[in-house]
């Protein structure tokens, strides 16, 4: 199992901002600034609860909120990991952007009067190229 990254979180108890939000805000910020990188493992719920001296349910709630928003990714029995950028977009947002890209692509194909099979082959090749680059 990968080691957890150290996570520096400063809580302001007695502030008007709930502790669960303070934790989530600071993790989001750490991810945005690159302090936490894609694939890194966060401390366990228990460890972070002990570190911050808060109820572990509070930490668990912050983690699950962040996972729902796509910032973190839970892996069964392995803990919480920083999700990649794609994880941060919601399902509907990804669908919307895909539809947008497809519409632009189709309009171009119509404009240049290309056979659909040729267009499809070109897209397939381009996507396969992308895959090989990712593996490398």
């Amino acid at each position: 199992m990968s080691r957890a990254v150290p996570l520096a979180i400063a809580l302001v108890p007695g502030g008007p901002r709930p502790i669960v939000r303070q934790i989530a805000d600071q993790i989001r910020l750490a991810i945005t600034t690159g302090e936490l990188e894609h694939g890194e493992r966060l401390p366990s719920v228990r460890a972070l609860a002990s570190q911050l001296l808060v109820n572990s349910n509070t930490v668990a709630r912050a983690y699950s909120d962040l996972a729902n928003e796509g910032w973190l990714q839970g892996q069964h029995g392995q803990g919480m990991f920083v999700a990649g950028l794609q994880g941060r977009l919601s399902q509907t947002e990804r669908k919307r952007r895909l539809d947008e890209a497809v519409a632009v692509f189709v309009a171009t194909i119509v404009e240049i009067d290309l056979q659909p099979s040729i267009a499809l082959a070109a897209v397939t090749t381009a996507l396969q190229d992308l895959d090989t680059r990712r593996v490398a």
Partner: protein
Amino acid sequence: MAHLDNALETRALTHCYGRKRALDSLTLKIPRTGIHAIVGANGAGKSTLFRVALGFQAPDAGESMLLGSPSHLLTPAHRGRVGYVNDAHTLPSWLRLKSLIAMQRTLYPRWDEAVLSRVLGYFSVSRSARVRELSRGERAGFSLAIALARQPDLLILDEPTLGLDVVAKRAFMEALIHSAQAEDATIIYCSHQMDEIERLADTLIILERGKLANYSAPDDFTERVRLWIADMPFKGPDPASIPGLLQVRRLDGLFHYLVLDQGDDFGNWLKAAGALSIRQQRVNLDQAVSAFLSAGHAAPN
């Protein structure tokens, strides 16, 4: 029917001292697992509730069940499953810790030496010391260590951190958090320390004059209270007419209203009442609870 899933359950529990009602038809259900904080002004009935729940005191009316058994019929076996620590931390002062520990070990079948050592580790007390040689914080830590080592299903703490210094308080909280996680014990805990409750508690239970006034997560309670600061001409509206008013103060000619369960509409209400400028603000748990409790007291002028 009593539910086995409840750590503490009361129905229409009433208890009077003379003419004063310490518990006034209190109906309350505290589930198993989790940390539950009970808050109330002095004399709100917290300690009476604990005494009745533990069967030390018979109520005038109503019922109380602890871990599914009627409080007045608790057997030694039942009591073995419940830990109770109050702020007095009373222990026989002449005994050495190790003799006390040896005694406890034989009395409680579920005694766990590892838990004892772990909790004592937070407080750095020597086992060869006598009880009377311990500081207040060390005594609190030792009481907690003993209570947790018995592996109770339910731990009741009556103002456990009262008078402890910051180091002892921190150690106490760490030990509690660990136990709630690792031993899965239910902890019912009464305190006036809101910063502690904010960190520790799953549930905030507010008692007011022997009645249940709130049962929710601490954050949800804080969310119900808002501070509105308004520049009002003249004397402002009659406090009795202000919806949800908990507390009003006049500072530098501005009115500070703490209100309960009022949405953004309250701003319109203030404008209609003649406010020239308005500002709305969230409050912290301490402000929310003290405003809520003070609303039941004498009206401020």
